[in-house]
């Protein structure tokens, strides 16, 4: 019986895959010099005089197996994901991708000088436009912003908000303050104005421990613990009333799994029933707000040895609208393309994950 379902699903997949939307692909800045044509004179001079070689954030330390899937390394020493042709071959063609959303991870959020950070963000966005969006019609990009200064970040969103190639505003999950705080609201106001969701991706500012209890010793802990930071950001966004203030706003959580969501919603709802008065603007169940406003990309899959557990977890979420397909290229989470999706997904849900859910979040 299982075989029959699988077979049917496979057929369906081939059909559904025309028009896959990959919501997490990483284009890398090959070198800081690549940004110079897009960087204002003052800051180009600053970078050269300071001898700054790179703002590569080292979220994926070189040489760790996660950092690059086989074949994505480049012969010239440039980081994986920095060559458009290779990215086409490895990320776009195999999936018959209709759109892939670029999330450029470059350490502008780590810079303590707000003006310099904003200038670097502008340069990265102009570089993304010229080197990626204008050259490959299947690509869309996230607006990189320096969230250190939300007013300046909002200005950058206004600068690019009408550009059809940009479909999202990118924040990093580790922040100086929880993202629900009013401090960050200018970013949300601008994003909502242009129909841009906020993407929150693993990684973030320096100076703050990456685990909830201090600094980890090992990369394994660091990577696994990103999902805890995501949970705290959801709790903050909902509790502070961001979605009450910006009712059209959507937030996409990128690259930290989704299986932790049911347990968080259960606890959050239970607490809200007793503590509601502390946050009266949250005037319905937090889980309902989460289901309406939050979306999550599926890679890396936190796989149980029993495939049915993943399906049960999706059932526990009680929404088929929340999960978005992603490969997290060029990071290495799976060997065969088949493994990018949970096994034995019902065909209807698979189709929603592969493209429909993304279409209802992003303005393509």
């Amino acid at each position, binding site marked *: 019986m299982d075989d029959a379902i699988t077979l049917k699903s496979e057929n369906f997949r081939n059909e559904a895959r025309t028009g896959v939307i990959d919501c997490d692909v990483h284009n890398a800045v090959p070198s800081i010099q690549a940004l110079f044509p897009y960087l204002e004179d003052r800051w180009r001079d600053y970078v050269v005089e300071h001898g700054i070689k790179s703002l590569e954030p080292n979220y994926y330390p070189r040489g760790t197996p996660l950092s690059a899937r086989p074949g994505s390394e480049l012969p010239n020493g440039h980081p994986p994901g920095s060559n458009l042709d290779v990215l086409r071959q490895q990320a776009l063609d195999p999936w018959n991708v209709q759109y892939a959303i670029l999330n450029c991870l470059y350490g502008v959020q780590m810079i303590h000088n707000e003006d310099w950070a904003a200038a670097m963000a502008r340069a990265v966005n102009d570089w993304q436009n010229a080197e990626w969006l204008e050259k490959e019609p299947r690509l869309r990009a996230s607006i990189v912003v320096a969230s250190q200064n939300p007013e300046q970040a909002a200005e950058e969103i206004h600068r690019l908000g009408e550009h059809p190639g940009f479909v999202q505003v990118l924040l990093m999950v580790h922040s100086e303050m929880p993202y629900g705080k009013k401090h960050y609201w200018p970013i949300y106001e601008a994003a909502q104005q242009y129909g841009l969701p906020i993407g929150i991706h693993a990684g973030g500012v320096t100076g703050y421990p990456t685990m909830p209890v201090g600094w980890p010793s090992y990369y394994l802990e660091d990577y696994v613990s990103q999902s805890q930071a995501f949970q705290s950001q959801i709790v903050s966004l909902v509790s502070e*009333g961001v979605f009450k203030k910006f009712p059209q706003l959507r937030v996409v959580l990128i690259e930290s799994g989704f299986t932790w969501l049911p347990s968080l919603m259960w606890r959050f709802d239970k607490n809200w029933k007793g503590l509601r008065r502390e946050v009266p*603007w949250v005037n319905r169940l937090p889980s309902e707000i989460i289901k309406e406003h939050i979306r999550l990309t599926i890679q890396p899959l936190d796989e149980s040895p029993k495939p049915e557990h993943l399906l049960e977890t999706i059932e526990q979420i009680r929404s088929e609208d929340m999960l978005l397909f992603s490969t997290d290229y060029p990071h290495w989470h799976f060997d065969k393309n088949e493994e990018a999706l949970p096994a034995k997904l019902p065909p209807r849900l698979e189709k929603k994950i592969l493209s429909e859910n993304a279409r209802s979040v992003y303005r393509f």
Partner: protein
Amino acid sequence: MKKHIVATVEEIPAGEKKFISVNGKSICVFNVNGEFYALRNSCPHQGAELCKGSVGGMTVYNGSSSEGFDVSFVKKGEVLRCPWHGWEFDIKTGKSIVDPKRCLVKSYDVTVEESDVEMINAQVETYLVTIKSNYVLVHV
């Protein structure tokens, strides 16, 4: 349904409450700004003695403001908060604030009647009633 005399009006001043037992059920009578209400003394959530909770008002959201949110404190004296988990209930309806349709505590009709005890056929022996007075009656 039967009427049960549970107190004289004077016995439960505004803002006060009185616990009674009717047919083995623990019930609490509240005086909310001069009006009487009766609730079953058991929280529908986990069975706490609900009416031992604190009575207050509730903080509600009115709408967005330029600063953030416009919030006010309303229903002063009308909201009962469970002594365990703090779930709020509207004393006037028995309905919970967080889930009024599915989570509610049994409420009973209460009337105030001028009468004497014998005429009502009540079994409350604790009140020595020889004169006409205003009584609080719970309909159970």
